[in-house]
């Protein structure tokens, strides 16, 4: 779970960098970068953190 989360979070960064070559329009780049940010946040909050909470110390 943690490894998948790390990959998804990093994928958002890759998407933002790819925006530089996928289009030259400002709006197009803005859309892709925002999509990259959403992917990174999903990876961080939705996957990595959620996975860690499953084994949180307060559950034991």
């Amino acid at each position: 779970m943690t490894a998948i989360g790390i990959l998804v979070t990093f994928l958002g960064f890759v998407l933002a960098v790819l925006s530089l070559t996928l289009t030259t329009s400002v709006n197009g780049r803005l859309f892709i970068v925002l999509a990259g940010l959403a992917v990174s946040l999903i990876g961080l909050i939705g996957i990595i953190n959620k996975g860690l909470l499953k084994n949180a110390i307060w559950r034991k």
Partner: protein
Amino acid sequence: MALGASLALAQPAAPAAAAPVPVTDADIKGVAPPNADARVKGDPDGGLTGTVSDVAVGDAKKGLTVGDVINQVGQNKVAINFVWTLITGFLVMFMQAGFAIVETGLCRAKNANHTMMMNFMVYGTGMLAYWLIGFAIQMGGVGGVGNLGGAPPLNTEHVMTLFGKPFGLFGQHGLFLMQGGTYDVAVMVVFLFQMVFMDTALTIVTGSAAERWKYAAFLVSSFIMGAFTYPLFANWAWGGGWLANLGTNFGLGKGYCDFAGSGVVHAVGGLTALALAMIVGPRLGKYTRQGKPNAIIGHDIVLVLTGCFILAFGWFGFNPGSTLGASGNGNLRIGSIAVNTMLAGMAGGFGAMFYMWMRYGKPDASMSGNGLLAGLVAITAPSGFVNPVGAVIIGLIAGVLVCLSVEFVDRVMKVDDPVGAISVHGANGLWGVISVGLFADGKSNYGGSWNGVTGSVTGLFYGDASQLVAQLIGVVTLVGFVFVFSFVVNLIIDACIGQRVSAKAELEGLDLPEMGQLGYPEFELKARPAGAQ
């Protein structure tokens, strides 16, 4: 209108512009020094001190020449900028004291020695790592710092070609401040100023992992952050790396703009703090078995608010000092930058205080302090590019954002952050980076260009949407790269030596088990149930 017209008529006609008269060595030689007899009697009003006799002469046989005067003017400019940058760097160094007492005050008395020692030794640990390798990675390829006389030895950046454009990745000159000709007066000034910034980022992390972080793991983690994590992103933003060149290479505004480090310093620190807090887990008693958070209050609000004031004072070094000079290249903006800094801090304090007052019925002291810091963090990136109204709006939003973020981190993510470092520095660092892309008013002019692109930094509200895209790419790099890098590094440290102390040590308080000495040995400390006010 009539009065204005009569005043205009009363003005004498402007004289015709006179042709410039060249100054020769003969003219210079005609300038007489003060009378020696008068000088011997003292100079109470300062009128005789600092005259032609103080200008260095290059060749004693020729006497004073125009060339000598020009060289003196150049050295005066660089000297002013050296002194400005060094003194503001000293102010930033003093922020370590502010961080230390804010964090210690927000922790329990049984961990006072441990929390203070982390804040104390992060200064030396970070500095060692940065001197050995971090500075070279960050600034080794910056390619000249005009305000400080050039610093030409910092001229080698490792570049990768991607999409047909050069992507600067890391610098290669400056190891030990000797390699590559970096034993240089200007390089030393750059090092001191950048070193204290790096240490600020490192000390943010000690807050989020306080009260349960193993001291040995803290040392290793801080060393790696000072050597690699911070310098890498700082190179991309400030050292001539690929983010700074988004403007020249891809037409995105003036490239990624982060005047004093909302992203480089605070978001890097805040996101690493988040990674650490997630890995070490919450303190014992912070959450019930159902996941409901308990408040674990700090032991000294006086320390906390005093520390906030020290930090606000140090911020006058952080932001205005980031011009790296007071003379030339539009550096008189330092007045505007200092005022923006204080206004945003004020607005942040008010924003947080009123939010807490309306939501919980009382103007919470620690959150008001965090609101002040949040405003300061948020204005750090835009301080050099926005006007006072923009600064107040940015600070006010930061003050409310820090409260919302603390609630989100505490209740939704269930990440235990004893001092609010993730929200103050992480969330508001990112907001500061974005705010440049919104509020930069296009009126700043630092020598006619920024990041190699002609013109002034201009945000979306003043007509340039592409600047916002550059800023957002910086934000995604922080979340998608810096967080991941920090998380993986600290997972490895966790696997090798363990990040968290034993439950027994945590319950006892870390002062004796980790440090061997109580912070307050003459006081009897009584345990209080978590959540009790």
